């Protein structure tokens, strides 16, 4: 069953009426805690409305224009059938991983290849986890991605159907990456709302890689919410590769919490998309935590990429590192808004934030804003932002040693990205991403 959104009414009302029509049928929850939050969420969504540029957090990204399209809201498990050959370009074969393929936000077991998972580890769909592991879902679902001030998180919470689920029990190490390949397919202009939950318990170690691709030229909008929990002494590395093509827009919200002595790292790279908004939020709710947030945006054409990060230090003795870089070509636009919060009593915090951008044309734009809110007095918090062009002196230096101007420029741009790429701890993924970047830069100076 699908529900076409009526475009004669304002977009908020389309979602609200779609919710009313489907409530109790398509939206009958797989799990009590998921079902319980729907009513509150749709109510909150109705109050908040779709964010417009009057809101400071959405000043440079006009999402309402993109949402106001006649999307189809698919509310039943009838994803188009695709086969192995369709996803073959996206599988990152060099990366030995536990692979799960999601088509239009739903796990497709026939394309997935879980391999041997350590005992107790669960990698499945959220819907399945809601039935089979209700206790874990209830403990964590909806606890980290707050929808009180986020209309799109509220909207996702109201319509949750399925998504990815990972559970790594206490003390367990998952050596190979867990790879979620998200594919959008079909001829319709879809509005998708996947919901993911990643739970890494005390002392556990996991690496999660997500890649987003599209098999369709239809205009799609994906409103993802992803939540994570990192227990004491645990380590979670999360990678997100966004490359859905020029007709796909998305808001990707991920929020999580980490406990004492844990390490939580996220690394996001955006290659394409019409409008891409990433909300990345880590709460370091334990002492001696390390939090890392890295990002790259390789902008071209009229891409618009907005990275909002929030680092909440609510306990003392933690450190956080944040580095986002953009290389913007053509008429692409990037926004970086990095908020760091240090609450009262969270002493001895060492928080670092940097955003660097290279603009390759006069028409590319970057809006960058650090936002530091510090209520403790014994902390080191630094931030910096640079915007500029490729260093011509460097280009001349390389040319004077025999490299062509083209090679010199490609090398300089790659070197600029390398600082972020060096944070990829999975060699095969780093090489895959580096290769994609190399190809992109090569196409600029053909």
């Amino acid at each position, binding site marked *: 069953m699908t529900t076409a959104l009526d475009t004669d009414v304002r977009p908020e009302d389309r979602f609200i009426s779609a919710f009313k029509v489907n409530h109790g049928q398509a939206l009958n929850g797989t799990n009590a805690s998921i079902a319980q939050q729907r009513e509150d969420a749709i109510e909150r969504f109705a109050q908040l409305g779709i964010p417009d540029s009057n809101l400071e957090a959405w000043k440079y990204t006009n999402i309402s224009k993109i949402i106001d399209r006649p999307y189809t809201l698919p509310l039943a498990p009838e994803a188009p059938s695709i086969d192995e050959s369709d996803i073959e370009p996206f599988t990152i074969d060099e990366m030995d991983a536990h692979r799960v393929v999601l088509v239009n936000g739903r796990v497709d077991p026939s394309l997935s290849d879980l391999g041997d998972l350590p005992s107790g580890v669960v990698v499945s769909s959220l819907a399945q986890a809601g039935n089979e592991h209700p206790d874990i879902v209830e403990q964590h679902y909806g606890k980290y991605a707050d929808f009180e001030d986020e209309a799109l998180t509220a909207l996702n919470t109201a319509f949750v159907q399925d998504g990815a689920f990972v559970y790594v029990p206490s003390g367990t190490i998952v050596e190979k990456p867990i790879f979620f390949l998200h594919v959008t397919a079909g001829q319709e202009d879809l509005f998708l709302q996947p919901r993911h939950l990643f739970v890494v318990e005390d002392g556990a170690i996991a690496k999660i890689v997500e890649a987003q691709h599209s098999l369709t030229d239809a205009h799609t909008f994906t409103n993802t919410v992803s939540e994570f929990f990192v227990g004491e002494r645990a380590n979670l590395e999360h990678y997100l590769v966004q490359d859905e093509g020029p007709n796909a827009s998305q808001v990707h919200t991920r929020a999580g919490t980490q406990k004492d002595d844990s390490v939580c790292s996220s690394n996001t790279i955006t290659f394409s998309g019409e409008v891409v908004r990433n909300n990345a939020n880590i709460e370091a709710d334990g002492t001696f935590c390390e939090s890392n947030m890295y990002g790259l945006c390789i902008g071209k054409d009229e891409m618009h990429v907005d990275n909002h990060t929030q680092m909440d230090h609510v306990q003392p003795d933690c450190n956080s590192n944040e580095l986002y870089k953009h290389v913007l070509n053509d008429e692409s636009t990037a926004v970086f808004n990095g908020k760091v919060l240090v609450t009262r009593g969270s002493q001895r915090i060492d928080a670092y934030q940097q955003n660097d951008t290279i603009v390759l044309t006069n028409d590319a734009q970057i809006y960058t804003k650090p936002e530091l809110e510090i209520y403790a007095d014994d902390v080191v918090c630094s931030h910096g932002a640079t915007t500029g062009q490729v260093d011509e002196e460097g280009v001349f230096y390389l040319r*004077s040693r025999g*490299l062509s101007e083209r090679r010199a420029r490609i090398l300089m741009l790659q070197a600029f990205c390398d600082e972020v790429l060096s944070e990829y701890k999975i060699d095969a993924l780093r090489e895959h991403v580096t290769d994609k970047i190399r190809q992109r830069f090569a196409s600029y100076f053909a």
Partner: protein
Amino acid sequence: MALLEVENLHVGVEGEDIHILKGVDLTLDTGEMHAIMGPNGSGKSTLAAVLAGREEYEVLDGEIRYDGEDLLELEPEERAEEGVFLAFQYPVELPGVSMTNFLKEAVNSVREARGQEELSSAEFLQMLRERAEMMGLNADLTKRSVNEGFSGGEKKRNEIFQLAMLEPRLAILDETDSGLDIDALKNVSDGVNKLRNDDRGFLVITHYERILQYIVPDRVHVMIDGKILRSGGKELARHLEDHGYEGIREEAAAAAAA
């Protein structure tokens, strides 16, 4: 036909009404070491920049022939391929650009242009180690990003090391001695002397006579206000150190007035 022939070279800054070189004549052949000395702002580094192909300068008049061909027609990388090398006064730091990868690409690009076989990774690394040792460059530096975090002396040594790797026919050293302590100066000079041979010409640009105590030139040219006012043997450098540039400037002024 000499390796390098500069004739009546006039140079200004692209898009600005500034005249820096005002008629420079210079002939340098393989096997020779020439020094250009002169006070600050005399145009020494501009000459080096024009030879290497910097685009911010504009040649207003005159010509430069390299091996009988018009050098000004060539792009900077084509000049490198043809065997022109400029050791920078201020070597550029390139964070993220690995020394080894960059040099391998540079070496193979000039080798290809010269009709030589591309070096395999093993051959390249062997050459890298040998030349680094020959130039007294800590081989660990080749594992880093180009010039990143190098000391002043290491940067200059790295330039001479790259010279050794790229095996040019015309090597231009732009103030390679500036800012070096005496040990580094000796070390860099030592490297340069090892690279002198009959197939290669050197043009050393310097402010001070001291480097010429270690790298003994065949010819010394004094450049003042965009012109070479006097040329002579290595003893001219000593004369300048003792008497300064003022005497030469006055002589030239008197000659012009007469």
